[in-house]
């Protein structure tokens, strides 16, 4: 629904751009390079759709061997997956973990992003580098030592351990996402608030928090999406009771043969739909490019 909204939005932009549109179209028809580019994009999308579609079809298939489509449809795999994998519990855990990670990483990351975007102080680049490292390093590299430490303090296998592990890339991610939003707020506005007699706390709660709200929303949503999809760190630190959906999915896949493929696919579809719901929510607040880049796309 959000997607249609935004499409409507881009239509408006398109009509506003009317004078240039026909010119663009003409070039479009003339250039073979454009056809090639669009061909590649369409090829990519068709394969992507088939990839997701095959999972979807298989999850509803009664039996599917060596034919274009299965020879019958059923929803029994869903109920089976729901029961045999204890999906309700897994989903609840997933939501709890992601919610905690979002909340804590925002609480830690937003003030830090403010200081890093605004201030210069001795050792700033060192601090910034320390925040950048968890994003630049493969999760396995720091995940294994982290899991070891968590085992040492008997936190591994618990939900606390999973939350702590997922915070490691999330806090830096909040900081990086928030930085352009902080930079957008004119620092003179803070000065003006102080000249009006507002102290540090009042400046933050009355002036900055409302102005940074869009950025905080964006960062929160992005961390939510990433945490639900985060496999490695959760995999390394989770116990049987603290698995998130993606880890449960992995276990059911790697234990294939014990259960029917369709049952695994049903679980995959549940995971997919959860991600898509999150994605739709996310795209209400952020630009698609922002999901990968901290650069705000110019309109």
């Amino acid at each position, binding site marked *: 629904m959000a997607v249609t909204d935004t499409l409507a939005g881009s239509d408006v932009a398109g009509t506003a751009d009317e004078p240039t549109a026909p010119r663009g179209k003409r070039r479009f028809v003339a250039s073979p390079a454009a056809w090639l580019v669009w061909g590649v994009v369409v090829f990519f999308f068709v394969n992507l759709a088939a990839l997701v579609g095959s999972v979807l079809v298989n999850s509803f298939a009664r039996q599917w061997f060596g034919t274009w489509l299965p020879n019958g449809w059923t929803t029994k795999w869903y109920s089976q997956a729901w029961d045999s994998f204890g999906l309700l519990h897994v989903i609840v855990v997933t939501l709890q973990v992601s919610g905690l990670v979002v909340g804590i990483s925002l609480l830690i990351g937003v003030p830090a992003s403010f200081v890093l975007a605004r201030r210069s102080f001795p050792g700033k680049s060192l601090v910034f580098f320390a925040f950048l490292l968890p994003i630049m390093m493969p999760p396995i590299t720091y995940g294994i030592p982290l899991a070891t430490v968590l085992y040492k303090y008997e936190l591994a296998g618990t939900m606390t351990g999973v939350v702590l592990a997922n915070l490691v890339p999330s806090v830096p991610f909040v900081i990086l996402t928030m930085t352009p939003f902080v930079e957008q707020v*004119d620092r*003179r*506005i803070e000065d*003006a608030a102080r*000249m009006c007699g*507002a102290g540090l706390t009042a400046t933050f709660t*009355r*002036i900055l928090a409302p102005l940074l709200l869009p950025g905080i929303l964006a960062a929160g949503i992005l961390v939510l999406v990433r945490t639900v999809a985060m496999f490695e760190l959760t995999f390394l630190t989770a116990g049987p009771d603290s698995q998130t959906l993606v880890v449960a999915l992995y276990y059911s896949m790697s234990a294939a043969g014990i259960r029917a493929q369709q049952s695994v696919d049903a679980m995959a579809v549940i995971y997919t739909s959860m991600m898509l719901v999150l994605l739709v929510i996310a795209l209400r607040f952020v630009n698609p490019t922002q999901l990968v880049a901290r650069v705000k796309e110019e309109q």
Partner: protein
Amino acid sequence: MRAQGFQTLELRGVGRRFGRHSALRGLNLSIQQGEFIALLGPSGCGKSTALNCLAGLVPLTWGSIWMDGERFDQVPCEKRGFGMVFQNYALFPHLTVRGNVAFGLRMRKLPKAEIRARTQEAIRTVRLLDQADKLPGQLSGGQQQRVAIARSIVLEPAVMLMDEPLSNLDAKLRLEMRTEIRQMHQALGLTTVYVTHDQEEALSLADRLVVLRDGLVQQIGTPEDLHHRPATWHVADFMGFRNLFRLKVDRRAEHGNTVTLRGNGLELDATAVGSLSAGDTVVVGIRPEDVVVEPPGNLSEPVGEPGSWARTGRAPTGTVLDARVQVVEFTGREFAVQVRIGDEVALHLRTPQRLVAGDPTRVQLPVHRMLAFPEEVESGSSPWVGAPTSHGRGTGSPKESEVGPGPGTGSGAGTGSGARPGSGEQPGSGARPGSEAVSQ
């Protein structure tokens, strides 16, 4: 404290360093209740730094600020009770006009009824009652500026600080707002410190001006002082002396300040500013509007001999020089003309006469308008010996003058840019970092 009704606010040796760059050094200034002070200078001269130091937004590196004998510079900015109007207005974009104006009163936790009444009154003062419930983004630049002013005056600040408040407005609006600011100052009697790079704005608004360059005070004085008696050629440059060239002192009159200068194929008389002796290199300047174009009829007569005052004893009126017209621009009421004199020296002048490019003409440079400054600038103290050096209220020029930076190496009409002061020294006023004790 909200410093209502102070008598004097004193800046002693105030300076600020950013990294290794001294943005402001040794600023001594005493501000009286109700005064309108303008800090004037080109961009990067330290005037905004001075304002931010006064506001408390930037901690001082050197010096101290005193209010009626009380140390003031370590009072946090939000407790100083000053108001500030920013160049880009810095309105809170998520609050309405009313919300913006009421913000400071809310921070003071005043009773609701009082907040409402005072907010209303301030908005009325800036004539925005019909826009009071709009957001800043819905207002024009001039209206936003008024909101910013209302937001400050509603707090009845001890000092009103204005940081280039008009520079984002178009020319017409700028003139209107200038008048309004002046009127408001007269009506409310708010002590105002006003930063600008526009000398016309500063001259028209301020009781006193502080001219800054490269972080150093060049001159402090009334508008008349600065206009008629600039202390250095940098100030002159800033005050509209568009024609500035470097010449050497040939000889000096026995009486008075008149000197004869030579160089670039020119020989002319000028009024010395400060002590000059024969052989000194000077920068001599004159405003384009002070150059007189001889009527066409006089062209056949021979040029008057420079230095004739020495023999005749007659008060010199000016040097007359042959010139060739180069560029003529029509500016509406008159022509802005560029002519060449001497060895291809460009001279700008304004005249109602219709001159033609390429034609010969003859110009007169009145001696009392032709000011010769020492090339090495000594900033701070006024070289206008005997002339009333301003500020009737008995403050002003720093006690210690500081040797300013050498002028740029460029010829003639140097703008002074590019010359950097020796970086990183201590400020002139003897303020030592970290060692001020309050003697109370």
